[in-house]
Each structure stands twice: as C-alpha cells, then as structure tokens.
C-alpha cells in the first residue's frame, strides 16, 4: 500500500542529494546544510523519546558528545579506523544509556527531567576535565575524516553526501518504526501507560529501548559531526544545546517525524539568516519554547493547522 510512494520519495531524495552536490559550490551552504542534517538525526531520535514514548530528556547533548568524543579520540589519538570508531561510539553511548536509563526511567515527570539534566551536565564536565584525553575546554583537533576505499571524505560535498544519506536512512527507519507494532505500542504508552501494560505492552522495557535508540541516533550524529568538522569542543555538547534540541522537537511537533525535520531545519537556519536573531538567540529560543508549549503544545505546524481548521469551521458555521 504505502510502498510505492515511499520508494518514489526515496528515489527523489537521492536524486536531490546528487543534484545539490553537483550544483552547489559554496562551502558555507554546505556547512549549514550539513549542520541541519546532523540536527535532524538528533531531533528525530529525541522525538522518538519525547513525542512518541512520552519521556523527557534535557541532557541529550551528552550522547551527541559521547559519540563525537569516542570517534574523535579513537581516530585522532589512537589511529583507529573511523568506521570502527563510529561503532565504538555507538557501543559506548548505548551502554551509558542503558546504565542511566534503567534507574532514570522509573522516575516520573520532573524527576526524570532533572535526572537527565544532571546527567548531561556531569558528562559535559567530564569532557572539560579529562583534558589529557579530550583536549579539555579548548577541544580536540586533528580528527580525520571518514574513508571509503582509501579515499578520504573530507570535501564539503563528500561530507554532505555521507550526512544526508544517513539522514535519509534514518528518516526511513524512523518512519517505519513509528508505523510498526513497536511504534503503536509507544503511542499507546504515551496515551495510557496503564492500559498499554494491561494489553501486554512491556512499558518499562520499551521506554528503555527507545531511550537507548535515541542515544544511538545522537551518537551517530556526534561521530558524523566529528568527522565532518575535524574538530570538537565541549561547548557544543552543553546544556544550551540540549535545550535547543528540545526546542526543535517542540516546534516541529512532538510525535511527528516530518515535524522534526521542520523543527531542526528552521531552528538551525534562522540564527544564520537573521543576524538579529543571532544576537538575540538566547532570548528568542526561550521565548519560542515558552510560547509554543503554552499555546501550541502540539507543535508549530500541527498547531497552526488546528488554528486554520478552527477558523474554517467557524466561518462555515456563519453561513
């Protein structure tokens, strides 16, 4: 039923990627677009956790950082193959997610939020303190790029293709998950944890699973980020970035994969294109978070659509 449009969409996406990489020359655009891609991977993963499973994480940047530093350190300092280092990052993040997730996901509401926040801060401090390993606050340099068949993928175009191919695969994977038995179980948990369990859904295990999956997404994004930038610093992995990620999820609409795309893209691009936004970045992020959560808790797109439908309905009532 849905296979044909998906395949067509996939083909279109790949064609667009190829076209872009051939047509566009400006490095700045690549940097920006690559950043969007990285953020999409992060936000989609976080959305699975927040929007679908109904949990909260205010420390997601930690997993992003774990992936980045694992890959960065293994390749820069120990000359490990970048692909292997990427897998190592996944294993590390997954293990940490399991370790933290098991006790944390038993907590409810605020407690979970604060535990995730605390966790994120601890990891950030570790990044700054283990300077012999991580390079400390000034960061880690000399991270090589990914290699395929001996060719180093260090041009903007190459990074672009790697990142956006990953984005495409991640999107496909996530859309499938959401439509699947597991996705349905997640949405059930979100609507009524008790009823879901009464119907045989192992809610604790599923929440933990999604937590680990979202950590893996973040780790993947982190590794790609490290290989594309060839340099990483703790400042990219702090509380502010975790909050930005949550903002992107919220703006895009929780429980909407395409919404995540929108949220990530918009909130990555806006600071770049609006210079005034750049200066007021903190204020505006805070304001957006507040306004969207108060007035459009289903996200910007869904909220505006709801408003539109409401207006249509009101107008038709008048005739």
């Amino acid at each position, binding site marked *: 039923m849905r296979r044909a449009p998906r395949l067509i969409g996939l083909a279109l996406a790949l064609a667009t990627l190829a076209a872009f990489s051939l047509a566009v020359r400006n490095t700045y655009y690549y940097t920006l677009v690559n950043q969007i891609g990285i953020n999409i991977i992060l936000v989609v993963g976080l959305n699975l956790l927040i929007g679908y499973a109904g949990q909260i994480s205010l420390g997601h940047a930690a997993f992003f950082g774990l992936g980045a530093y694992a890959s960065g350190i293994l390749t820069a300092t120990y000359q490990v193959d970048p692909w292997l280092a990427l897998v190592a990052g996944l294993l590390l993040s997954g293990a940490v997610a399991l370790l933290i997730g098991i006790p944390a996901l038993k907590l409810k509401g605020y407690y979970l939020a604060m535990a995730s926040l605390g966790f994120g801060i601890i990891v950030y401090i570790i990044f700054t303190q283990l300077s012999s390993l991580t390079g400390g606050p000034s960061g880690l340099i000399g991270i090589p790029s990914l290699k395929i068949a001996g060719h180093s993928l260090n041009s903007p175009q190459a990074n672009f293709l790697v990142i956006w191919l990953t984005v495409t695969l991640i999107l496909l*994977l*996530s859309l*499938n*998950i959401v*439509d*699947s*038995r*597991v*996705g*349905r*179980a997640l*949405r*059930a948990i*979100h*609507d*009524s944890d*008790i*009823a*879901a*369990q*009464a*119907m*045989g*859904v*192992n*809610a*604790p295990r599923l929440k933990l*699973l999604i937590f680990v*999956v979202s950590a893996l997404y973040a780790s993947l994004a982190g590794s790609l980020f490290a290989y594309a930038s060839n340099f990483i610093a703790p400042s990219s992995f702090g509380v502010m970035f975790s909050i930005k990620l949550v903002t992107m999820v919220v703006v895009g609409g929780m*429980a909407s994969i395409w919404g995540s795309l929108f949220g990530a893209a918009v909130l990555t691009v806006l600071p770049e294109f609006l210079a005034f936004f750049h200066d007021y970045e903190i204020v505006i992020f805070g304001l957006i978070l507040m306004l969207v959560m108060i007035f459009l808790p289903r996200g910007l797109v869904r909220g505006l659509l709801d408003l539109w439908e409401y207006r249509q309905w009101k107008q038709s009532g008048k005739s």
Partner: protein
Amino acid sequence: MEAVGKILNTAPQDPLLTLHHVSLSFGGLLAVKDVSFTVTVGQIKALIGPNGAGKTTLFNLITGILTPEQGAILFQGQPLQGMAPHAIAARGVSRTFQIVQLFNHMTALENVMVGRHVRTRAGLVAGGLRLPWTRREEAAIRDQADAWLAFVGLGGRGAERAANLPLGHQRLLEIARALATEPRLLLLDEPAAGLDPVETDRLMELIFAIRERGISILLVEHDMSLTMEVADDIVVLDYGSVIAEGPPREVQRNPAVIAAYLGTDWAQ
C-alpha cells in the same frame, strides 16, 4: 471467524482463576480482607458490592497493578501475584477499566491493534527494516482487529478517533481491545456504567457471545438486572470481605447481602 476462535484445552468447570485469602491494606486501612473465590472455565462470575467494597482493588490485584500483602492468586494453577501487568496479559488475563482508558490519540482500529501486541512479535529492528514477515504480521493484526471490532458491533467505525466515540461505543471498543489479546479470562469493570437500556441489552448479548468463544468472564457491575441475567455465580463484597457467594437467586435472598445494600436495586 477462525481469526477470533480459540480452542480450549482445559475441561469446563475446572478452576481457572483462584484467589486464596488475598489481603491488602492501604496505609493502615484494610482494603481487601482475606478474599477467596474461584472462577471456573466457561463461567460468567459477577463481583458485586456497595461502593468502596474493594471490587476495583481486586481487579487491580488480579491484573498486577497492585500486589497482595497476603494470599495467592492462581491462574490455571500458576501464581499471578507479583507478576508485572504485561506478563499477566500474556498469560491470558485481560480487562477493561471502570473509567475508560482508551488510547485517545489513536483510531478505534489502532486501539484494537494494540490489543494484538501481546500475541505478536515484530520488534524494533524488524519493524524498522520492514522485513517481509513483519508486513505479513501487520496485515494479520489489522484483519484481526477489524474482526474484533465487528464482533462487538463496531464494524466500520475503525477509522474514527477513539476520543470522538460516544461513551457506549468507547466501552465496546475497550472490550474489543481486551478481546484482541486472546484472553482466557476477561475482567470487565462496570461495562454497563453510563449505558442506556438498549446498549445494556446489547452488552448482555455480547457477554454471552464472548462466553461462547470459551472466554470466562469476571465482571464488576452495579446494574443489578444485568447482573442477575448474565451471571452464573455471584460473589458479594462488603468492606473488603466476601459476605456471600453463590447463584444469583441465593445471593439475592441472603440477609447479609440485603443488609449491606440498604435495600436499593433489589426490586424483582
């Protein structure tokens, strides 16, 4: 409908669910006191009693939301107490809720599809990769859910949002969802609450139809006429203890029961 049929492999009249001296207190208040009774295979058993008597607490004990402080709950001979709710569902005990707990953001069909979760297998990776066998399983889930919706009388309403259905249909939907788990024992918590007489009649027919499929029923109800019609056996609870147990006519005449109820709802 082979999709919804189920073959029994225990003989009728065998004990299916047994409560042995189950007790639970909430902060010093004894909510359930030394409760023992049995539901046999193929039986429709009613659990009645004044408000606050401990009926829903018993349901929560049986389905694992609460754990008894004392006593045992056996299902098909195996202990249930201490098991997690989802594991109990896997064993074959399913339920509806006193206040409807539907998955409001999902459609009616999707609600029932969640009921199939416990009998299906597709995991995160398999589902993410959309392997062929998971697609077949999804199609089967969809068909079975459709069948159960039709069985309870909601056929054709699958695409509606659960939250938008009227209460009567929501209660039926909850039943369809519980049935989709292929239970041996179905716990119905006040299924007639808020239903009009026509809907209550249909509910009665549905309860009999469920029993026809070999599913035993334990039902909490306040609607006495429904209870009298439908139940093979009744357990009466008051202040957490069993004060009577037996066929409807007997229980109806029991002076302790009449006293507990202060005379309401016992008109012939």
